[in-house]
């Protein structure tokens, strides 16, 4: 479904300095799969996701979606391809000037769908995400979880083949995270939607993803089926992540963001020793 070959992204700053965000990335996301991209902050995982719908233009390499090369697309052709992909965001990015109903209707509006069809579709989606009673509410009147539900409904409005999730559950509490992941999983199962999910939460990957790629400093260090990779981690990065989650499980707390984990990790080892 999505094939990424030798992808490279270099950012050039104002003074001409070069930052390599992605280097020689090769990935294959199968149809109907929930694919996780996990890695520490600044590893390039969001950049990678954003290359798929060309919010970020890769410097080199190829991305094909259903056999169509997307890296060279511009203007109208790009907009058509983008309408076949939904995207949800960490901070939801809803239009504050629009109600839930009109936010969900937005992608239909821009692709010129009739009012009658829009109404039917939006009502369907409101029911799907369980927000029928919030149709007239503005984003400022919704909770984080509800906002992300609106985001999901909006992303699904045009019946996309692919859903891109950029840290979609990172701003939510653990319970809401589980419910949003549950919703994504059921959508994946029911509609066969392919989902690509960027996250730093191992929990999220464990709960929802069939396959996962671990990315560090712009390179994919490991990829495979989630159960296999997590039961036999082949690299330090992956092991580091898994240790994190064990801390969370053992201490019963919510687990922390990678990057500020050194202290947590050493404490974790002690805790685990105690328990064992």
């Amino acid at each position, binding site marked *: 479904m999505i094939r990424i070959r030798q992808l490279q992204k270099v950012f050039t700053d104002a003074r001409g300095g070069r930052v390599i965000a992605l280097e020689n990335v090769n990935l294959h996301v199968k149809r109907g799969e929930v694919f996780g991209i996990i890695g520490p902050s600044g590893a390039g995982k969001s950049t990678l996701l954003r290359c798929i719908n060309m919010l970020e233009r890769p410097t080199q390499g190829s991305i094909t979606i259903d056999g169509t090369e997307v890296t060279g697309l511009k203007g109208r052709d790009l907009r058509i391809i*983008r309408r076949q*992909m939904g*995207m949800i965001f960490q*901070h939801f990015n*809803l239009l*504050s*000037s*629009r109600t839930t109903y009109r936010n969900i209707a*937005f992608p239909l509006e*821009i692709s010129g769908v009739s009012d009658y069809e829009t109404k039917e579709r939006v009502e369907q989606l409101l029911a799907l995400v369980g927000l029928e009673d919030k149709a007239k509410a503005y984003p400022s009147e919704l909770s984080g979880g509800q906002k992300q539900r609106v985001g999901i409904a909006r992303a699904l409005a045009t019946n996309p083949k692919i859903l891109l999730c950029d840290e979609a559950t990172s701003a939510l509490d653990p319970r809401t995270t589980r419910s949003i992941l549950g919703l994504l999983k059921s959508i994946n199962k029911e509609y066969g939607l392919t989902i690509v999910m960027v996250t730093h939460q191992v929990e999220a990957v464990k709960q929802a993803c069939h396959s996962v790629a671990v990315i560090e400093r712009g390179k994919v260090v490991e990829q495979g089926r989630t159960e296999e990779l997590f039961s036999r981690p082949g690299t330090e990065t992956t092991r580091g992540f898994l240790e994190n989650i064990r801390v969370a499980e053992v201490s019963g707390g919510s687990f922390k963001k990678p990057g500020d984990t050194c202290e947590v990790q050493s404490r974790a080892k002690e805790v685990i020793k105690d328990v064992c």
Partner: protein
Amino acid sequence: MFVDALWQTVYMVGLSVVISSLWGIPLGLILVITDTGGIAENIALNRVLAFIVNTTRSIPFVILMFAIIPFTRFITGSAIGATAAIVPLSVAAIPFVARVVETSVREVDSGVIEAAQAMGASPLQIIVKVLVPEALPAIIAGITLTAVNLIGYSAMAGAIGGGGLGDLAIRYGYQRFDMRVLAIIVVILIVFVQGTQLIGDYIAKKVTH
């Protein structure tokens, strides 16, 4: 006497607000979208427009008013009277509105613009359906500010026979030392400015969600 002058001021300021909004809003939007990283990046155009806007804003209103008399005459056929005053008032207010709109539109969350791009929105759709509605409360607050400034400017326009409250204040109050007339005009102006601000605040609140 007062009623006529008030209506002249309302007419001058009202029409100037409308004209400067019609020109200033698109100009402000162009300043945002053509800037570095904008949705229709065009640095050359951006710099030229920014230069024109800054230059116009640098000229004190009294000077501008006299300087563009030939232009005013060309547009309205006359250089004196309330209608003629609308020309310099609008010319002064257009760059002001443009800057205010530019600032408001820049405040729109870049994530929301990105979301619209990800959905396949065209640049025009982003302007009409995202930038303007999302920035609307701030744009309205800015236009209210412009209107209040224009009330002040319109008094200066009175100095070249623009009519309105300013003209009355200068002729009766200042030149004939009639403090009573002057006081009444000041009171009318205070009420007028307060009213304008209240209406603006009310509309801005209506469109804020």
